[in-house]
């Protein structure tokens, strides 16, 4: 059963709706003790990374999350929270994955936010099982996670290559919104729920 970290950063209606469509049971995590109730944990997030981190700190869940050994999936800003630092609000984040979240550079002739469907190249991690390379996912973000070969499990390109998905041990993060990414996104959520402890 999936536990969704409920820390008030953005709306989770679409995420819970997707899990319901997929018949994946879920519940909400408000306290450290509730982390123990679930086999898998999702950290959602929309909006400002610095603000989201402050909200997460306020819940007291940062240390217990960092100590988890079960599969954890950060989505969008939830993924960025796994990194060391974000240029958004010059914020120190959880530093589970020691890489940085940076602002897209409009001097590269790109529009910001990066909004819409972009294709990804993945490294055959189980999270992407059954997802063809080159499949498009739905992205909405102005800040991105720098590409780092050690942690990257899927890459996208927008002015430059960046990490569409990362992994370190049991911690996974996806920059796109699987709950809004059609059939491929639903497959990814299903794959996550099937990851072994």
């Amino acid at each position: 059963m999936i536990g969704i970290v409920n820390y008030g950063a953005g709306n989770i209606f679409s995420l819970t709706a997707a899990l319901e469509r997929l018949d994946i049971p879920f519940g909400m995590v408000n306290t450290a003790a509730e982390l123990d109730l679930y086999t898998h944990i999702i950290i959602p997030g929309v909006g400002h990374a610095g603000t989201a981190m402050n909200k997460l700190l306020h819940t007291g869940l940062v240390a217990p999350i960092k100590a988890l050994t079960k599969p954890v999936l950060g989505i969008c800003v939830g993924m960025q929270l796994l990194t060391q630092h974000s240029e958004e609000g010059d914020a120190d984040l959880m530093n589970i994955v020691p890489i940085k979240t940076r602002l897209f550079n409009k001097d590269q002739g790109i529009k910001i936010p990066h909004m819409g469907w972009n294709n990804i190249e993945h490294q055959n991690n189980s999270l992407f099982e059954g997802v063809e390379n080159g499949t498009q996912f739905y992205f909405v973000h102005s800040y991105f996670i720098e590409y780092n070969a050690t942690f990257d499990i899927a890459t996208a390109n927008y002015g430059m290559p960046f990490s569409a998905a990362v992994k370190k041990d049991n911690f996974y993060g996806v920059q796109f919104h699987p709950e809004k990414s059609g059939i491929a996104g639903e497959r990814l959520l299903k794959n996550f729920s099937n990851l072994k402890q």
Partner: protein
Amino acid sequence: MLSKRIIPCLDVKDGRTVKGVNFVDLKDAGDPVELAWQYAQQGADELVFLDITATHERRGTTIEMVKAVARQLNIPFTIGGGITSVADAEALLNSGADKISINSAAVRNPQLIEDLAKAFGVQFVVLAVDTKLVNGRNMVHLNGGRLITELETEDWILKAESLGAGEILLTSMDHDGTKNGFDCSLLDKVARSINIPVIASGGAGTMAHFTDVFLQTGVDAALAASVFHFGEIPIPDLKEELKKHNIPVRS
């Protein structure tokens, strides 16, 4: 590479989709959930719902519809019509809408754009602009083109971007309903003058019109209603046609 988006637009009244929709296998053409799901199956990249009779009293009906759509739909959608406050927008966001579109409320109160962007992020705020050529100048119009404002379209869009609009939905009232093609010259000027995505709207009649708007302008998406609703342009065929012209689309 970022795909160019194809966006069907659905008019909604009292929580039901209106305007003739002519899908063979549709049980209830007025059911927004079934219609939305059909479009997602066909490969639409995003949907826009326009609540054409939105009033304060009927807000609850719209919210229930948004929730019902969000429960079933696995692609993003925007809802517009009658949003005049941060509270209106928040209720829609919490019901599963990905973006809201504002039009006349922003003209009357430009501060609304900034307030919405601050509260929910620029990615949530679509500014819809209806434009019409008057004495050689593109002027912003309200009430479906019936009411002219003092705002020049390009100036208004630049101002909206600086206030925090995340995307522009630009409808040419001169082209809308003609099926003679999009207003490529204005769309290109606008798309080049700002650094946020632009959705082209008004005038789609053939697949070539979509090819033209993507090849001749810097827009990011194209929106249409009747050509999709009446099955005149099936979305899978349109995507194939765009691909032939090397326009990046989602497969």
